[in-house]
């Protein structure tokens, strides 16, 4: 942590000293004869929980859910600017501190020490403070990017289907509140593009991730977006950190794959832009076809360690309920397995609808899964693991972007008068027998079907941005976000919103589990 702070201090000092030659500070600093561009931001993000239930209140002194201060710095240095060769060096650095555990003692004690340390700052991995850092090289039709990067392959919003390269950090909030580029976890990779002159303006893209693996970071047990530590122990032992959730996280962490070439992940994509005439209208299709070979972002139990895992989890539960020492977490219990995803996406404007239609489909081949006894009387997420298997999964997402215009509104309150509406449907189908699959969420579900709606408009000449986002799953869970962003001038940014979660069964999906996490949130920031 100190090391990271020192690096940031050094960077800031360099900026201040070189500020003598600052040309323009309206939006970004341009230094060294415009060769270096520096931009950044600092934000305070606070969430206040409005529906904390009694069983959770005992783990909290306050109803605050998050108090995170985050600073980012982006550097873009034009290292080579020749006619046939351009090299840009880009880095996006970040630092944050989540302060809530510092003044809420009960909250502090609900999260394990290690998890708390990793949760409060960019210290889950030693390079967490680097969101991106790469050399971007252009020569003729070739473009090579070397370094830590974030890849965006998706066309649709809110739900990811083919966009699988970078895992997400979901510990602090849900997608839609924070920008994707700050929720995705960067990976060290080599990424190349070849811009061909073939019909359809084909662009060939490939990615090689030589062993840098990151799992998805789910909400930490004991934290505001996570579960309370469970099973709950005796009252005089509450709060007591390290429940089953923390144990599983720690087991996974200790089993994380090594940074070796044998753990390389690969991806390939072709992007094209083709014109089709149909029924008297032109359709310009932006399409992609992709393949991804990588590790699943959650592991499966090693066959030889299944008994150890079951026994450990049982011992931990006994220790928590009846008192006793928390057993030490053994390593090497889980393994991260490879699987493949074939995907395709397309977007086009459809004149007859006056709307842009986007769609994507992915077919996951051999997705690693855990097995459990389907006849057990225990809830599926509690069942003993009996083995591992693989399943294929189909994901589909379709959205329709339709601007709705109000001439009446366009002449009032500096409004744009346009409501940008996005209607979406996302489906998932799991192939094969699902009753034997052990999952924490959606354990017996073969199909998932989500409907989404996003409506945005702008008031006061784009200084006020009201947004509503809504996701409804046909199993009667979902969430809504009501937000207003205010950008009065060049630098200050304000945002306020309400997060509403609902579900009739919290085990239906990860987001369904958040059913009592309703919050008001505030975000105040300075961009430069």
């Amino acid at each position, binding site marked *: 942590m100190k090391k990271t702070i020192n690096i940031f201090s050094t960077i800031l000092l360099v900026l201040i000293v070189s500020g003598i030659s600052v040309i323009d500070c*309206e939006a970004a600093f341009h230094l060294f004869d415009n060769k270096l561009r520096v*931009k950044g*931001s600092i934000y305070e993000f606070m969430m206040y929980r409005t529906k904390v239930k009694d069983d959770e209140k005992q783990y909290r002194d306050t109803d605050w859910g998050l108090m995170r201060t985050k600073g980012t710095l982006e550097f*873009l240095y034009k290292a080579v600017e020749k006619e046939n060769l351009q090299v840009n060096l880009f880095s996006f650095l970040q630092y944050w501190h989540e302060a809530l555990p510092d003044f809420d003692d009960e909250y502090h004690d609900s999260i394990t020490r290690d998890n708390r340390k990793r949760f409060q700052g960019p210290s889950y991995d030693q390079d967490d403070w680097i969101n991106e850092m790469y050399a971007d090289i252009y020569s003729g039709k070739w473009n090579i990017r070397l370094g830590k990067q974030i890849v965006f392959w998706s066309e649709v919003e809110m739900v990811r289907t083919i966009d699988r390269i970078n895992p997400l950090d979901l510990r602090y909030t849900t997608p839609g509140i924070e920008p994707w580029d700050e929720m995705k976890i960067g990976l060290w990779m080599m990424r190349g593009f070849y811009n061909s002159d073939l019909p359809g303006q084909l662009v060939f893209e490939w990615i090689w991730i030589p062993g840098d693996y990151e799992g998805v970071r789910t909400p930490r047990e004991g934290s505001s977006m996570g579960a309370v530590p469970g099973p709950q122990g005796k009252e005089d032992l509450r709060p007591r950190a390290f429940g089953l959730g923390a144990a599983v996280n720690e087991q996974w962490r200790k089993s994380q794959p090594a940074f070796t070439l044998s753990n390389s992940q690969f991806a390939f994509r072709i992007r094209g832009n083709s014109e089709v005439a149909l029924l008297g209208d032109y359709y310009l299709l932006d399409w992609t076809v992709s393949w991804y070979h990588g590790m699943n972002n959650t592991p499966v139990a090693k066959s030889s360690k299944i008994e150890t895992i079951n026994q450990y989890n049982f011992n931990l539960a006994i220790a928590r309920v009846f008192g006793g020492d928390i057993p030490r977490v053994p390593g090497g219990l889980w393994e991260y397995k490879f699987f493949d995803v074939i995907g395709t996406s397309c977007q086009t404007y459809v004149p007859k609808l006056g709307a*842009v239609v986007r769609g994507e489909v992915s077919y996951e081949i051999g997705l690693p899964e855990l097995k459990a006894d389907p006849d057990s009387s225990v809830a599926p997420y509690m069942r003993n693991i009996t083995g591992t298997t693989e399943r294929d999964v189909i994901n589909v997402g379709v959205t329709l972007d339709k601007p709705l215009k109000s001439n009446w509104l366009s*002449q009032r309150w500096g409004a744009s008068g346009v409501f940008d509406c996005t209607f979406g449907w996302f489906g998932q189908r799991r192939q094969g027998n699902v009753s034997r699959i052990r999952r924490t969420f959606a354990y017996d579900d073969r199909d998932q079907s989500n409907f989404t709606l996003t409506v945005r408009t702008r008031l006061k000449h784009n200084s006020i941005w009201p947004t509503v986002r809504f996701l409804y799953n046909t199993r009667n869970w979902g969430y809504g976000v009501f937000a207003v962003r205010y*950008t009065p001038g060049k630098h200050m940014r304000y945002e306020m919103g309400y997060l509403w979660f609902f579900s009739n069964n919290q085990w239906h999906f990860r987001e369904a589990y958040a059913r009592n996490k309703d919050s008001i949130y505030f975000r105040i920031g300075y961009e430069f």
Partner: protein
Amino acid sequence: MRRTIVSVLSIFLAVQCFASEVTFPVPGYDAEELQKVRLWEKSWNNKKITAENVDQVKDFVHEGVYTAIKDPGIFGAKEIWFEVVPYRPYTLSKGFIEATKKYAPTSHLDEKEMLEGYGEVAGIPFPQPKTGIEMAWNFDSNTRGDSHHEIQFGTVVDCKSGFERTSEQHRWELYWVGRYDVSPVPAIEKSKNPRGIARSFFQRMAAPADFIDTTILEIKYLDPHRGEDLWVYTAMFRRIRRYANNQRTDSIDGTDMIYDDQDGWYTHLIHNTYDYKGRADLLAARHQDSGKLEKAEGQGFWNGFQRERVNHWVVEVKNKDKNYIYSRQIWYLDPETWQMNFKVMYNRQGQLWKMYEMAYDELPSYGGQTTPIFNSEHIIDFLRRHGSTSVRNIQSVGTDIPLTQFRTKSLKEKSY
């Protein structure tokens, strides 16, 4: 055989005779009118026009400008003023003149009011127009040097509160057809333009901070029934998003300008009807030194416009869509280049809603020539007391811009 040769020769001679009737460039004033203008200028040259003396030149000031000068508080200013400068005819490029003389004699509109041969001709098609639609085609045919690259510094101003938001963007614009200066003329080869692109722009934002590297690509096609294609790469979301072209009446980044307003009128002419309303001798900024522009914080209207007398062609424009955001527009077109010097827009209740003024200057362009191109502008909203100003730092005019820049793949290149 002999008869055929005679017929061909007759047609050729007839065309040549007709061609010889084309007068271009067309001066803004004939000799007698110019004498009167010069006489008037003797009293007003280099004079600063303010609220105190604007009534003396009221006949040559548009109602919108007059209102702003008389009541500057509406636009967040203590004083709004401009300077009178002498009328100066433009020096048009050799290619512009030659293309007009070559193609204008045979120009005519089909039954759908489309210019015959559109995409294969260049120059001003109707140097001596008779109808509103011919004037509109003249306006549409000015390619402003065929290509240009500029850096725009824009300010969105809430004149009531004084709040300002600024933006900066690099913009590259290319005409694929109707070209008269930069080879190939009059159009990019069809083999390199299989989709029939008429015009395209590529724009990358450099401010505000949260929109840095957000990039826009818009393509306008030759086919008048085909809407523009618009893609936006939003750096914040790292995605290339296709936009619906029926969002064209949406305001651009909170300014008072809608997408259709760009450069006066950005999309196809076929969407409107055009009614010629006569001539209007009004002051307009045709030779603007952008360094002389100034405004106070919170002011949505430039001070320091250098206006000269111009005898504009006035065209009333109504959209064929009855629900269009403007009930009508009045275009004020320059008699020499057919550039739009300014326009006013009326809301659906018939009230004067907005005014868009473009200030031009003759800038170095292809082959050491000059091309009039606008280097600053303001668009003001009379009803909501709001204004948007911008200065355009023109980097180049009439240069080769690689066609590959106008592909969607370019949106993400070198953007972070």
